[in-house]
């Protein structure tokens, strides 16, 4: 008997087939959408598609959402295609980082005419909105699920055809005002660019990248099942391809035990006693900070398909739901090279090990904000090796006491996955990796 995996071929072949199909679809459609789960090679696809379009000689505009994303993208694009002239549009106050200026084929300017006439122009959606009348034959919109549809409305006149790439499982765009007024409208401005695009153009091809190269074999099934229940993906590496070990001995504290559990299995739940707390729960914040510090002290070494390397503090991230939690964790004393940030800001980033303060830890209620599946998805899918979740006991009970009670709006497509369900699914998995102080 042949197993399903061997029929589907190697992960490389599977992913390659999807990329080929995307590139083949490009000329035939006004828009092509590619859904990409965490670490599935979205940037690689963007870089390849950009090269592919540039070969045809047509000018190309690339839209990303933040300045960091634009810089990252240009850095990769310039390295991959050193002969390709690339322009970076920016606000006048923007200072280009040295890594961009190091590429001879990149020019930075605040206006399109000042760029010379590069084959590829990259800018944020906000910047593109100011460009005016000029139209490009091609556009690539990166992180399109994190882009609000009103931003797409402002730039859609600037391109004829577009490739939309993004991760549907991450955080949805939001507004500081109540958008109920537009709920159910197909052009609801607070919805993501992709949902609005697909509601008006349901016949556009939608592709899915099937393999996560980032998530280890221990994490891909958990994240796939919880956050991508219908369109699953698998890990590009096997269980034996990656490992994490410590070169410094521990002291058998609960923090050491949690880190060892995470190193051995890819997951750990550091569970504090049940208690209702303020958002910046001092005990949980301390635990997160101590775990991060201890992790660096244990001098971890990661082995992966890319070889063996020590995991320095720059390869470690700490994630939380709120900015004040981030500030509190910083203040509690985390090695300065470790990234500490909110889920929103960690989107699209990759680390070897992450330590996460669970959004529902110590809460008395489960609001839509804290239940949003994208938040937990971002936090639990940034790592290549292991993820330690810090939480107070009692979250499953809290979830049971707060079933989703958002009013149902007419004409709004039902959203999957359901945050409540996704939270339960992740917690069920974490329960097997519990360490208590």
């Amino acid at each position, binding site marked *: 008997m042949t197993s399903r995996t061997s029929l589907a071929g190697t992960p490389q072949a599977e992913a390659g087939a999807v990329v080929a199909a995307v590139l083949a679809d490009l000329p035939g459609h006004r828009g092509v959408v590619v859904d990409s789960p965490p670490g599935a090679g979205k940037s690689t696809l963007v870089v390849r598609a950009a090269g592919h379009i540039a070969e045809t000689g047509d000018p190309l505009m690339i839209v990303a959402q933040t300045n960091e994303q634009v810089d990252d993208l240009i850095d990769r694009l310039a390295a991959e295609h050193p002969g390709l002239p690339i322009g970076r549009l920016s606000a006048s106050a923007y200072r280009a980082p040295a890594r961009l200026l190091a590429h001879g084929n990149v020019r930075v300017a605040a206006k399109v005419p000042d760029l010379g006439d590069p084959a590829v122009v990259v800018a944020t959606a*906000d910047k593109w909105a100011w460009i005016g009348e000029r139209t490009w034959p091609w556009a690539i919109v990166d992180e399109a699920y994190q882009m609000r549809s009103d931003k797409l*409305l*402002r730039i859609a006149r600037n391109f004829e055809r577009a490739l939309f790439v993004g991760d549907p499982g991450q955080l949805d765009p939001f507004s500081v005002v109540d958008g109920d*007024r537009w709920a159910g409208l197909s*052009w609801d401005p607070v919805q993501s660019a992709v949902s609005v695009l697909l509601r008006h153009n349901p016949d556009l091809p939608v592709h899915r990248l099937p393999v996560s190269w980032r998530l280890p074999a221990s994490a891909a099934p958990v994240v796939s099942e919880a956050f991508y229940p219908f369109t699953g993906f698998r890990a590009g590496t096997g269980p034996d391809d990656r490992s994490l070990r410590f070169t410094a001995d521990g002291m058998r504290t609960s923090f050491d035990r949690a880190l060892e559990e995470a190193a051995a299995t890819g997951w750990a739940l550091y569970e504090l006693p049940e208690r209702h707390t303020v958002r910046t729960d001092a005990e949980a914040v301390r635990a997160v900070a101590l775990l991060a510090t201890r992790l660096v002290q244990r001098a971890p070494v990661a082995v992966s398909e890319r070889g063996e390397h020590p995991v320095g503090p720059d390869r470690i991230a700490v994630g939380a739901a709120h900015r004040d939690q981030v500030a509190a964790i910083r203040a509690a004393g985390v090695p300065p090279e470790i990234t500490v940030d909110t889920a929103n800001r960690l989107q699209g980033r990759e680390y070897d090990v992450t330590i996460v303060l669970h959004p529902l830890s110590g809460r008395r209620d489960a609001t839509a904000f804290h239940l949003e599946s994208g938040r937990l998805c971002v936090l639990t899918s940034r790592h290549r090796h292991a993820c330690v979740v810090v939480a107070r006991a009692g979250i499953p009970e809290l979830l049971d006491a707060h079933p989703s009670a958002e009013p149902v709006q007419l004409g709004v497509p039902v959203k999957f996955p359901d945050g409540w369900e996704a939270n339960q699914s992740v917690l069920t998995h974490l329960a097997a990796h519990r360490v208590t102080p």
Partner: protein
Amino acid sequence: MSALTALARLRAVREGRAQPAATVRHCHIAEAPMVFIPLRMAGEAAAPLAAMIGTDPGSPRLLVVPQPRDRDLRFAFAAELAEVLLPYVEGFAKETETATRRGAEPYERCLSAPQVLVPNGQAAAFTGLLGRSTRFRRAEGPYPVHPSVPVLGRWLTFFAERAAYPGSSLLVSATDALALHWTSGQSGLEDANLAALLGWIDPPPGLTGLRAAQEAEDPLLWPPAGPATDPGFDNEVLAPAIEGYTRAPTARAVERVREAVRTQLEPTWRLVWRAAELLRGLPAGASVTRRWEYDRGAFTEFLGRVAEGGPPQARRDGAVAAASRLARMERARVSFDVQRAYDDPLIMAEYRLTGEAFAGEVIAADPEHTEGEGRSRKLRPLVTIRTVDPVRLAAGTAVGTPDRRGQEAELVATDGGEITLKITKGMGRGKTPSPGAVPAVGERVCYTSLTDDFQASASLPDPDLTPWTHGGPPEEWVPDDADAAEHWE
């Protein structure tokens, strides 16, 4: 709920009285607002039953629909409502001033604007529904209505839509306005009951806030502020009265319905005026006038649109209209939050707790510090402040201060509780600062990273050029007879 609000709620319970949530008033309260208390028939979204309306607390006008299921009677009610509301609204058109703005033609702006005061958020929403059901009606064609009805519909819609802009005071809901200024000892949901909220804020002598709020939950003592009526009243009093009118539509039968709803409306009428009085008792915040100016501008603009006989507001926002409204609403939200913090130390305290602001004493100042050489030499005074606030601002952050609003500063360094700032804007061109421009040693100051810098949003396409991603250009609305027959219950 922020820590400060939680603390205020606990204190309110302990003291038996609502605690101030603001030291100044953050909404405009007109000298003679138009108080409007609508009631609707149970079971229908937009069937008016009655309304109490007027600008004089002593003489309210009571309008009723003796049989709310009768559409003709509903529109007769709308025409009566128009008789009260439209002269009030149009009265503000007479006196105008010439307003100027940067980079645009000067324009005429009304000196004042109407203000409609409703008891709660549901009443504001009902105002919008009433507007929706009347603005597309016409005086000719099938089911004609009085010519004032569609005009009323436009105005009611205008008021309800303006209420969605944070900081606008054209349509004010009493419970929302009170909850912005006082924190009661009950939940936010319970605060939506006007009688209960006022019970906490202004309990009758001898009663605690809690006791007064409990009393307010008895529909016999305090009938609901609407638009929904008390089911007990519906069954026992209203249904027989309406039934009586249906059997014999006489003046006496109408009077019976009138007297029935009057008992439900009068207590709320007094409460709304009491709320206005309490709010008026607070000194106005520094930015209230500016926000009211925007309201006056919006009113003047809409007044012109109605006078030109423009079409009613669209049923739904098109793609471009929705995006543009969202941008304006978000802008209003940010301005309102920032302005309130600048106007009110108690609101600023919230930001001090979250580390976005800090207050403290100036311990060192170098008012004549300069940067650059020769012609580009600029005055950049340095100020060091000692604070006990948990500051979470990084070096390089731009900060502003409520005490010197024209100035902008930049955080240079934080060293424990000592923060050094460099004043970067608003120092003028002189070589030395004008007296008082730089905080002196010993002065208490407050700085925050909140700024009301307006980043204009990029232009949107013309609605006729709506791109393919958003469904292409919308169809143009042409009024037709089908509008009169649409189901709007």
